């Protein structure tokens, strides 16, 4: 039996059964959420392993065995189409979510309404998994909304201060605006081509690339840049991510802006508007879209994002806000990788850039998860996230400080750690494509270095009054941090092996030089 639907069923079951479980008593809610998310992690790992082993795209039809309708020759049913990129993201999402829920056991112990908290966290995880496995663009929108609405509510979960409520409302307005852009794009595509299946849509667009499809592409990419927090529209991110509880910040920064942002951009561009397909059409003098323009637009926003995001991080006094701006900067690197992947499509350079971008998504999810867990530990133990009051924490919280040093070094991209490999691939490809881009990328890293050095000096500085009586947090918070530190070290030592064995096939499958994404669906039309 195919294991794929269970990756959705398990968290959905966990979320719906949460009110029933909470009747048994307060303690069971957290344990139930840990069990459910742990199971989901196992299932996602199984799905990833299956696809990695066979190196084939998995197509799963909902409601029937065949996506093609009775008596017609086109797909009418919702399909889930999982390639290695989707499966890798699903694995990352379930892994970080599992650790975040484990971390919540202690971090959220003093809050009320925890059945809603855990139910919403599982729904958030479910939405992200749905986005990365779906092959139907309206199904994608539904999962995007599930994810977004859960995250609006979770940002405002601690409603005893106005910070959370303000950030939640702001996030909701901006997010709804972005969602309506995306919905408009989908509606235009559906009106023009009459199908919602992504792979079939790709064929239809290649047959008849109209102005409408360009407008739809602009709406989709615009809306998704909002959701991923690219620079001119990053203002919601720097409010929402610090205001959420830290376990949720780790999921928002590490996962949500990737699954609902850069992943979706990459999927829509490479899956639906494949640059290779259109340059092929152009070679035969047929009407085609010119995706180089789009690639340069993405590179432009990427450069803006990585410089401004990292530069804004330098001047923050609030530790979580600093990390949030750093997330904006790192999104810039990922977008830069995808942008170069589009303009240098089919080239060795494009492949390196895509490998770097995919690799950096995974690395950043792990590193930013760790950094927000550290911020949470500091808030939980000291009660403030203001850097001016946190001086000299290193002596009282040595493990937390050590984890921070490793996380910060990894996100800056120092050699023995995992951030180095992915950033190196992005630098390398941008230097090969256009040296100016590489210079801009390095400037971003310099700012990032300055920001994290500042936090490090605060931690190592003279002990202030506030931290005199502070202790390390309990085990439920230490263990997730320790796991992430170990993952960072292991991924750092094996970085090039991981790059060759996992990330390169993933980038190739995303790039799909032979149109594998469409072929996986065509199998059914040919046979049906």
């Amino acid at each position: 039996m195919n294991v794929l639907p269970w990756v959705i069923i398990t968290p959905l079951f966990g979320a719906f059964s949460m009110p029933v479980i909470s009747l048994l008593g307060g303690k069971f809610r957290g344990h139930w959420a840990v069990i459910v998310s742990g199971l989901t992690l196992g299932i996602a790992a199984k799905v990833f392993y299956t696809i990695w082993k066979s190196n084939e795209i998995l197509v799963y039809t909902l409601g029937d065995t065949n996506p093609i309708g009775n008596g017609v020759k086109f797909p009418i049913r919702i399909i889930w189409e999982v390639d290695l990129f989707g499966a890798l993201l699903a694995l990352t999402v379930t892994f970080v979510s599992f650790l975040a829920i484990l971390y919540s056991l202690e971090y959220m112990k003093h809050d009320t309404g925890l059945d809603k908290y855990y139910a919403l966290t599982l729904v958030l995880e479910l939405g992200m998994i749905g986005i990365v496995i779906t092959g139907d663009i309206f199904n994608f929108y539904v999962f995007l909304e599930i994810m977004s609405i859960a995250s609006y509510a979770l940002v405002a979960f601690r409603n005893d201060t106005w910070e959370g409520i303000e950030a939640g409302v702001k996030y909701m307005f901006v997010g709804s605006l972005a969602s309506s852009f995306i919905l408009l794009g989908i509606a235009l595509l559906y009106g023009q081509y009459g199908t919602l299946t992504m792979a079939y849509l790709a064929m239809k667009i290649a047959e008849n690339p109209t102005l409408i499809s360009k407008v739809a592409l602009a709406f989709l990419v615009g809306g998704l840049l909002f959701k991923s927090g690219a620079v001119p529209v990053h203002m919601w991110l720097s409010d929402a991510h610090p205001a959420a509880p830290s376990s949720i910040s780790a999921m928002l920064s590490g996962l949500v802006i990737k699954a609902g942002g850069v992943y979706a951009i990459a999927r829509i561009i490479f899956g639906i508007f494949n640059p290779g397909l259109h340059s092929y059409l152009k070679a035969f003098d047929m009407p085609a879209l010119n995706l180089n323009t789009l690639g340069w637009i993405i590179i432009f926003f990427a450069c803006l994002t990585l410089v401004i995001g990292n530069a804004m991080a330098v001047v923050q006094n609030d530790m979580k806000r600093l990390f949030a701006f750093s997330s904006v900067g790192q999104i810039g690197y990922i977008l830069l990788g995808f942008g170069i992947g589009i303009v240098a499509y089919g080239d060795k350079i494009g492949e390196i850039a895509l490998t770097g971008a995919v690799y950096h998504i995974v690395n950043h999810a792990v590193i930013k998860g760790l950094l927000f867990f550290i911020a949470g530990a500091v808030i939980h133990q000291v009660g403030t996230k203001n850097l001016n009051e946190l001086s000299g924490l290193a002596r009282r919280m040595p493990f937390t400080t050590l984890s921070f040093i490793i996380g910060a070094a990894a996100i800056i991209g120092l050699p023995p750690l995992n951030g180095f490999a992915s950033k190196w691939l992005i630098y390398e490809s941008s230097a090969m494509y256009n040296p100016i881009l590489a210079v801009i990328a390095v400037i971003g890293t310099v700012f990032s270095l300055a920001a994290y050095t500042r936090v490090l000096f605060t931690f190592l500085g003279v002990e202030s009054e506030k931290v005199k009586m502070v202790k390390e947090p309990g085990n439920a918070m230490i263990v997730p941090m320790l796991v992430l530190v170990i993952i960072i070290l292991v991924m750092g030592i094996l970085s090039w092996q991981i790059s060759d064995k996992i990330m390169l096939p993933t980038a190739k499958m995303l790039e799909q030089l032979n149109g594998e994404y469409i072929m996986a669906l065509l199998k059914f039309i040919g046979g049906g």
Partner: protein
Amino acid sequence: MRPQNSDMGLIVKTMARATIPLIGIFGAYVIVHGHITPGGGFQGGATIAGAGVLFLVAFGLSEAKEKINKNFYSVLEGIGGLVFLTAGMLGLGVVFFYNVLWHKGPVFNGEAGTLLSAGYLPIMNLAVGLKVYTGLVSALFAIALFRRWKK
């Protein structure tokens, strides 16, 4: 100034007494016929929730608190979701959301257009109706409970 939890007076209460059952019946009709007429679980559930809101508005919060147990509604909402999920999982032997009741029976596999047809759809409509009704009533209850104006 009126006391905070006041009801709305005799005329409104009498009208509410008369209309709440009718609204409920109409909502139940929309849910049950969801698979053969326009409407369905969400619309019917929202209609019944309208009756709940009318009760809340006409009789006031303190009266509604006695009749409506918040935790019970929260559990019912979870059960609605679980029933929906289970209906989707019935055909998991083939694929997720495979309509096994419609294809193989034993119930809800009558002639298309009749009440006992369409496989899992009537079950899902009932589940969604339950979830929407309890969810909307809980949400409005929360809004009514958490108002924080100064006296």
